[in-house]
């Protein structure tokens, strides 16, 4: 018999449980927990698995409606109908803490985890994206993190053969020491092949498939639920190690399995490994599971039930099938040379029973472990941060207007947040699977669905600086801007997934940021009818120097009924008219310009009128569907001047633009101010009248501000007059040279 330490309150506290939680466990069990049981409770009730500090607020997000078939939280990822008998499953997740201390494996296993979330539902992943936030590029440590995170994402996704088609890479001092590594995956499934993460039918066998279990990642979920500290470096053993080749085998084997009528349910093992998958599947099916832990194939000898239950070894799944089909199951996994081992069966007691060497070491009602069951849920105190009032004051009088706007534009194009990220995405295989109609670098990526006329547009958006300055509005903008990006590429927004990266929720100011941002996102999601399919909350994103910017990252997905309507942002033909759809009211608060040129993170960010925003998006969408839009580009970081410069440098040689228009704004507001509800499009002269008709229908102003030229210059009023070459150099070569 295995000897375990005696459990006391102090053991529970060491496991990250509170005294109240420990007492609650004793009440549930009617006795002191065993050491194995304590381990199980500690991971299942960790923030990472239980969402205990966030779930009450997450429930305020719209989680049904639109095209949603399966809602958030019900499965690993929501399912959204796209017609033709097909559905898409997509989700974004963080792997921040592992990546902070072991960037390559942290990022790689982040990709592996999100992919399993998708194919465990029976959906074949067809595209992925990443949203990466680092500290300043000036620091060697951050360049090191960037280098290895990108390599980790690349190696894992490339080997799996899933194209990484988009994303974002952002640099702010606040992410120093605690980078945000969020990865998104999207898969497609025929309705009838969608699989549920459920255990049902007492006596049905339970199998573990895929990799053997090792000691890696024990307490990873708990590790993710505390702040990083000086000691974190010593917790590298909490970081899992990825094996993308095995994942590829598991992917193919699982998708074969999903087509079988005798499959009852399947769940991947991510955080909290066997514990989480067995308890969640049981709770969902209102049953229990009896596991013989000695059967689990392991990488090293001497592992006990505690370690086996808590290991976060990658590339594993828990599978429940109908009794009598064991040989058929084995045949699939044999074909792919993967382990497939029966470790127990479904029971009708509702208990998660774990036997080790014949001894019952854990006997817990499964429902008590999980979110929606016995896992704690907290309302935490929230208080408006004191920094807000001071930061929202922006003294425009004290802000000198620049002398040389050409120089400012070049400086902004070199800014790491704006400059082209080719250095990053050229390391990602973006064209495998031959569906990538628009790859990385545009407003949104577009991936076609073979066998249909359809395509999906997708992007990630997370501007932490905006949310820091105004959490409610920042949350609203995150959703609205993501939708606008998808619209610019030709997609009708259908649903979002979100990854909410915040600091320590026990800090009332952090919790207030969280609450406000979620409220803002919920408001806009409701207006746009883009429900939340699921996602992830990552708290405790703090380094020794403080909390990160509150950073909700939105993964937005849109549908193109006709793939040939995919629209890009570069100018196409000299003579085309450059037009603003919406209102050009740039403000400087919270802008990239203010940060880069004036070294200030300050001011009120641009307001959002959601009702107007929707009409602007509808005009753009309608015009794209009518085939009159030659290029469309959302006005965002860096304002109008950067927007137009990007559409020039990405265009073929010789293309330029000449803009001439007036506004009652300061020159720097006009050129570099950021605003919502503005899309810059180019169209042929003959289509002007058609665009006017559409915009009148939706009562949206449009204004011609200039024309595409063949001079290879960018000219804006009397303010900017510059050749393409320095713009190209600034935009395309900065990151490469900074990383050399």
């Amino acid at each position, binding site marked *: 018999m295995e000897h375990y330490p005696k459990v006391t309150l102090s053991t529970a506290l060491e496991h990250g449980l509170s005294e109240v939680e420990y007492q609650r466990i004793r009440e549930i069990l009617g006795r002191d927990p065993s050491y194995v049981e304590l381990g199980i409770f500690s991971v299942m009730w960790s923030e990472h698995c239980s969402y205990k500090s966030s779930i009450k607020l997450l429930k305020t997000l719209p989680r049904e409606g639109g095209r949603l078939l399966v809602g958030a939280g019900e499965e690993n990822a929501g399912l959204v109908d796209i017609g033709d008998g097909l559905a898409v499953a997509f989700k974004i997740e963080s792997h921040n803490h592992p990546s902070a201390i072991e960037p390559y494996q942290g990022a790689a296993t982040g990709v592996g985890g999100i992919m399993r979330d998708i194919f465990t539902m029976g959906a074949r992943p067809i595209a992925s994206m990443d949203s990466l936030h680092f500290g300043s590029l000036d620091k060697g440590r951050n360049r090191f993190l960037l280098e290895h995170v990108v*390599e980790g994402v*690349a*190696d894992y996704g*490339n*080997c*799996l*053969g899933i194209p990484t088609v988009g994303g974002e890479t952002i640099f702010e001092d606040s992410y120093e020491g605690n980078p945000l590594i969020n990865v998104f995956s999207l898969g497609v499934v025929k309705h009838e092949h969608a699989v549920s993460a459920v255990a049902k039918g007492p006596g049905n066998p339970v199998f573990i498939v895929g990799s053997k279990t090792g000691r890696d990642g024990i307490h990873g979920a708990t590790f993710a639920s505390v702040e990083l500290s000086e000691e974190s470096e010593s917790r590298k053993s909490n970081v899992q190690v990825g*094996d*993308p*080749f*095995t994942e*590829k*085998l598991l992917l*193919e084997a699982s998708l074969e399995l999903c087509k079988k009528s005798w499959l009852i349910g399947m769940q991947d093992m991510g955080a909290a490994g066997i514990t989480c998958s067995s308890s969640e599947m049981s709770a969902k099916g209102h049953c229990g599971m009896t596991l013989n832990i000695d059967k689990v194939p392991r990488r090293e000898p001497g592992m006990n039930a505690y370690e086996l239950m808590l290991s976060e070894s990658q590339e594993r799944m828990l599978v429940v099938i109908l009794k009598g089909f064991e040989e058929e199951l084995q045949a699939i996994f044999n074909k*792919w*040379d993967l382990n497939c081992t029966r470790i127990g069966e479904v029971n009708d007691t509702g208990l998660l029973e774990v036997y080790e060497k014949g001894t019952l070491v854990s006997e817990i009602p499964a429902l008590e472990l999980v979110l929606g069951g016995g896992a704690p849920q907290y309302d935490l105190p929230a208080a408006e941060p004191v920094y807000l009032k001071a930061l929202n004051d922006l003294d425009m009088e004290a802000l000198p207007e620049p002398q040389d706007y050409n120089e400012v534009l070049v400086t902004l194009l070199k800014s790491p947040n704006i400059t082209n990220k080719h250095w990053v*995405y*050229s*390391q*990602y*295989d*973006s*064209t*495998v*699977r*031959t569906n*990538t*109609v628009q790859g990385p670098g545009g407003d949104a990526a577009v991936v*076609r669905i*073979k066998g249909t006329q359809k395509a999906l547009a997708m992007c990630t958006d997370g501007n932490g600086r905006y949310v820091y300055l105004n959490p409610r509005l920042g949350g609203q903008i995150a959703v609205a801007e993501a939708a606008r990006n998808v619209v610019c590429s030709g997609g009708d927004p259908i649903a979002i997934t979100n990854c909410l990266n915040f600091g320590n929720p026990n800090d009332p100011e952090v919790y207030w940021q969280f609450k406000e941002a979620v409220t803002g996102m919920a408001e806009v999601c409701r207006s746009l009818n883009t429900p939340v399919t699921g996602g992830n909350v990552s708290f405790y994103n703090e380094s020794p120097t403080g909390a990160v910017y509150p950073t909700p990252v939105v993964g937005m997905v849109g549908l193109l009924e006709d*793939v*040939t309507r995919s629209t890009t942002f570069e100018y196409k033909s000299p003579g085309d008219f450059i037009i603003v759809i919406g209102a050009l009211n740039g403000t400087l608060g919270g802008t990239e310009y203010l940060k880069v040129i004036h070294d200030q993170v300050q001011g009120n960010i641009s307001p959002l009128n959601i009702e107007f925003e929707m009409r602007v998006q509808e005009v753009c969408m309608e015009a794209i569907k009518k085939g009159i839009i030659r290029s469309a580009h959302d006005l965002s970081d860096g304002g109008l001047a950067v927007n137009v410069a990007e559409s020039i440098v990405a265009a073929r040689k010789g293309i330029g633009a000449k803009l001439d228009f007036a506004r009652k704004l300061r020159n720097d507001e006009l050129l570099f101010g950021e605003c919502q509800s503005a899309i810059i499009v180019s169209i042929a002269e003959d289509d002007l009248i058609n665009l006017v008709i559409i915009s009148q229908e939706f009562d949206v102003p449009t204004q011609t501000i200039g024309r595409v030229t063949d001079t290879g210059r960018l000219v804006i009023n009397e303010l900017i007059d510059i050749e393409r070459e320095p713009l190209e150099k600034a935009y395309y070569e900065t990151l490469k040279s900074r990383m050399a």
Partner: protein
Amino acid sequence: MKIAVIVFPGSNCDHDAYSVLKGIRRMEVNFVWHKATDLNRYEAILIPGGFSYGDYLRAGSIAKFSPIMTSVIDKAKRGYPVLGICNGFQVLVESGLLPGALITNRNLKFLSRPVSLVTRTTDSVFTRNLNKGEKLVMPIAHRQGNFTADEETLKEIRDDDRIVFTYGSELGGNPNGSVLNIAGILNKERNVLGMMPHPERAADPLLGSTDGLKIFESLAGNS
């Protein structure tokens, strides 16, 4: 023409190649699993891109020991066309069907981007429809595509007109540091072609280029 697309467990361009070949007139395509050994009914073989067996050691180095490769080598020796794309090229080199070696890219990173190719020979079943000097655009996606060989081998493949494609100067030029800008080569008998770029990813106007189709049409004997 009956063509087999070999599927290693880590192949990930197998379906891409399959779906393009299926659309080629007079081409009949099937997948063949790596544990199989019988290729008798096939008149051509395609080894697709991917990570055959994970390639943690060296790309293609384990694939050469797989059951199917004995049959592929046999087919090649008997003069049937064998086309290796990306990882397929790596497997062909490791198996000794093609000379030289494919080492890590000059910048030590995985590279995914479109490249410009120049057709150097039309004297092969793969390029008979092309014109000498014809430029093609298609994507690359690899970490180990930097072709190298000793001086003697290089002289031989050059003298024998076995360099099929080189990287052109457009679109950033030679991406990976390959000697003589080599992107694809033939064996001595001219029936085995290995190339790093992906023609199957350039076979649909929606994806930006159809240049890759010319290679498959050549192989099928279509004009």
